[in-house]
């Protein structure tokens, strides 16, 4: 079963689903708030047009909106999250929600001054590094969820700097480390 077929359960502090063994699999949790804030601050540092791939709990989207930007495009593919993203965007005139898998819609997207990529169960994960350049403006900045607990990235993207965060996440199914290395890539 793919991620988009999973029945998501929304709680105040997390989104999760039950795997075939009735175990909870977290998709996103609110302990990431500081990381989402920092990610949003980085991709909006030059203002301009911002692309956010993955809406999730909307934490980073709210932070992105707190900065001065021209436009905010959000790509979301889970059928249970799309309505929440649309509702969230309904009173934000500079927000566009694009429904679907980011790789399927990428050729319909523009180029951006800031990009934040944070997806779950993304079957096109491996295509992110090769697609990144296509989506960025000169001097644009990008970051993404870094699943590695080291100042490195599994994508093999060159020229990346890392900001270290000390974290203390509750036990979960996607990140159980005490350091998070936020990637910073400038084009």
């Amino acid at each position: 079963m793919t991620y988009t077929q999973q029945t998501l359960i929304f709680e105040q502090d997390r989104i999760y689903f039950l795997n075939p063994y009735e175990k909870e699999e977290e998709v996103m949790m609110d302990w990431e708030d500081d990381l989402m804030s920092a990610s949003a601050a980085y991709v909006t540092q030059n203002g301009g047009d911002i692309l956010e791939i993955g809406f999730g709990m909307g934490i980073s989207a709210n932070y992105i909106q707190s900065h001065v930007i021209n436009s905010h495009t959000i790509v979301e593919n889970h059928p249970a999250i799309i309505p929440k993203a649309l509702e969230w965007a309904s009173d934000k005139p500079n927000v566009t929600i694009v429904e679907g898998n980011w790789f399927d819609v990428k050729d319909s997207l523009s180029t951006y001054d800031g990009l934040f990529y944070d997806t779950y169960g993304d079957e096109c994960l491996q295509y992110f590094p090769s697609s990144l350049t296509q989506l960025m403006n000169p001097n644009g900045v990008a970051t993404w969820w870094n699943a590695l607990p080291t100042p490195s990235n599994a994508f093999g993207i060159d020229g990346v700097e890392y900001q270290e965060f000390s974290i203390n996440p509750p036990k979960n199914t996607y990140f159980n480390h005490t350091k998070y290395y936020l990637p910073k890539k400038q084009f």
Partner: protein
Amino acid sequence: MATATVNVDLEGYVEREDTSGFPIAWVPITRDDPTGTYADTRTTALITAGTRSAYLLNRGTYIGFNSRSFFFFDLSSIVGTITAATLKVYAGGTGNSVDTVIVEGTAWNFDGSVTTLDLPDYSALAFTTPYSSPKLSWTASAYNSYALNATAISAMNTNGYLNAALITDDYDYKPQAPTLGDDWGVLISYANGSFPQQLDITYTPAGYGNDVNGVASASIVSINGVATASIVTVNGV
């Protein structure tokens, strides 16, 4: 012939989980690595998918996952020659049912003298020594039975114990890589006080081994109320 049921003495599971930003070569990286990433010796009750193979995506990473269950039965209470045996594993639920198979295990220091599982026990099994045919179904809240083959029975008679691993058949035993998104496994009820894993054994009791009055020794359970296991001679023979 006599029969006996032996409860499991040691049990648990060892998992291996590989994460990477890019696709994982599941068989060489996850299945064939000698060391696990989590080991759990069960002495208290737990229902979990201790036998499981998966290739998944989560938050920014691919996950190769494989888990193997290990069981040890002390057979010192069986005095005689085992002729047939069935390993019964109690299911805590269905899970995402998958073909499973029993193979020779080498955890527990082979003979049960070590009573805990550790990470290297992930590879404490012999793929070349299947102890059963693949089981194609898994029934929840019931014993799931594996008829052990001649290789297993020979090992039990030689060793005085059964050391076995329960693994997925297609992905771990054969093996073939699961497709991205696959998550196959069975829910096992470990250390279940009411329904322990069991070994049903048929054996020929040791003891008097001669024919008596034309009756084959294998067919004689007792003579004049005395069990054959306790008979050394009959009428001086």
